[in-house]
């Protein structure tokens, strides 16, 4: 299935509210998972938070079907869900929890995702949504509930921190290679 741009819900007479949510699900699920993958750093986690966002959409479907931009609403909910769950993931990881799942990416990109997971949550969200999900800054601000200026500052700090983290990772691997 291709990733078609989101179609507005207007002019869908004859469909129930649930049918309309299902339509958004089919049109937007993969794109949202792609966007949340950078935020979560784990494909399974991204799928779970997006599924949870859709469950909440069904729960509030009468409101949901009247939204101008339901995908933006889902993204905001998914980011909020990921924040709550991130603490659990950190605990689970420290206890030797489940393996992290990734899409087919080259080594450099996997290292980037690993470094991204080490950033503070706010910086990670900004970097992932702006650079990896290609969202404009005002949409990142909406998704994270932050002012535009704050998002810009997080992007700047996050890039700087990411550069340091990546340099450390590559230095360590070089040292390991040369004994």
């Amino acid at each position, binding site marked *: *299935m291709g*990733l078609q741009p989101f179609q507005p819900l207007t002019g869908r007479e004859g469909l129930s509210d*649930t049918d309309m949510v*299902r339509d958004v*699900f*089919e049109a937007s*699920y*993969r*794109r949202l*998972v*792609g*966007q949340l*993958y*950078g935020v979560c750093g784990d*494909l399974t986690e*991204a*799928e779970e938070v997006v*599924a949870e966002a*859709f*469950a*909440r*959409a*069904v*729960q509030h*479907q009468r409101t949901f079907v009247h939204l101008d931009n339901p995908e933006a609403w889902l993204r905001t909910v998914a980011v*909020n869900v990921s924040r*709550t769950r991130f*603490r*659990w993931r*950190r*605990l689970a990881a*420290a*206890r030797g929890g489940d393996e992290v799942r990734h*899409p*087919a*990416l080259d080594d*450099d*990109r996997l*290292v*980037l*995702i690993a470094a991204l997971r080490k950033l*503070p*949550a*706010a910086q990670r969200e900004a*970097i992932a949504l702006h*650079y*990896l*999900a*290609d969202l404009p800054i005002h949409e990142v601000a909406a998704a994270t509930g932050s002012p535009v200026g704050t998002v810009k500052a997080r992007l700047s700090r996050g*890039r700087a921190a*990411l*550069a340091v983290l*990546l*340099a450390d990772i*590559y230095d360590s691997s070089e040292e390991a290679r040369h004994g």
Partner: protein
Amino acid sequence: MADLDRLLKADISHAAAQAVKPPDFAPIEHRAAKRRRTHTMMMAAAAAVVIALVAAGSSLVIGRESASPPPASPGPPSPTFGSMPSGDGAKDQAIEPGTYRIPSSTWSAVDFTIAFPEDWTVQYGNIYHHEPHQDLTLEAAVVDEIFTDACRGDGVPKAVGPRVQDLITALRRQPGPATGRPVKTTLGGYPATRVDLRVPKGLDLEDCRGADDDVLGLQIWHSAPADNYFVLFPGAVASVYTFEVGNQRQVFVTQNRSPHSPEARAKLQAVLDSIRIDR
């Protein structure tokens, strides 16, 4: 080292999107339907209570002045309680002044009642704040795990035993926050022990693990049942009240970010004094 600009591209999101396919929608729909049913049942129960109260001519909240004359029925009125906003995540919701019955949950080992005057809000359905500055906070907690170090360390909490003394010992062993010896007191009509906590002077919270999540404070414990961290903020005085009800440990924790204000202390104490434990 690979160039950061080259790596920070949308192809990562595209690869992730291509790696998944939408799952069956039915389980998601069922999950939502189940929540809606639960919500509807709770609303119906609340409506039934309201109708019963209106029929009985009572006000919804005890202790609240009513413009109508008292009912002519003989005998003392049975107590009635307000309905605490269930909370919508982190969003604060105003609490109507009155007395509330809080059932046991992942946040509290026992049922209790508590009275709030004006200017209090509730977050996550269970964390009570004094507004407008959230200078005072109160919550019940089920504490099964505590951090051995509230600042440094791996951020993995360790199990704490079930007795009152287990928690007191664990709190006092945390390097830094406990300010003195435990204080014998009472709460909700029960003998209780209070341990006061403060961020130690000279401790740079930027060096603590909370700073990784943009939180400048000490992570005292993580209440796994409620998925709730208790974070001690700089300049605040937190008081952990621990006591036993039956064979269960009950914990209340307050945090006063205006500890030098007699007025703030009095407001917090008034709410604490209103707590009654239901067995």
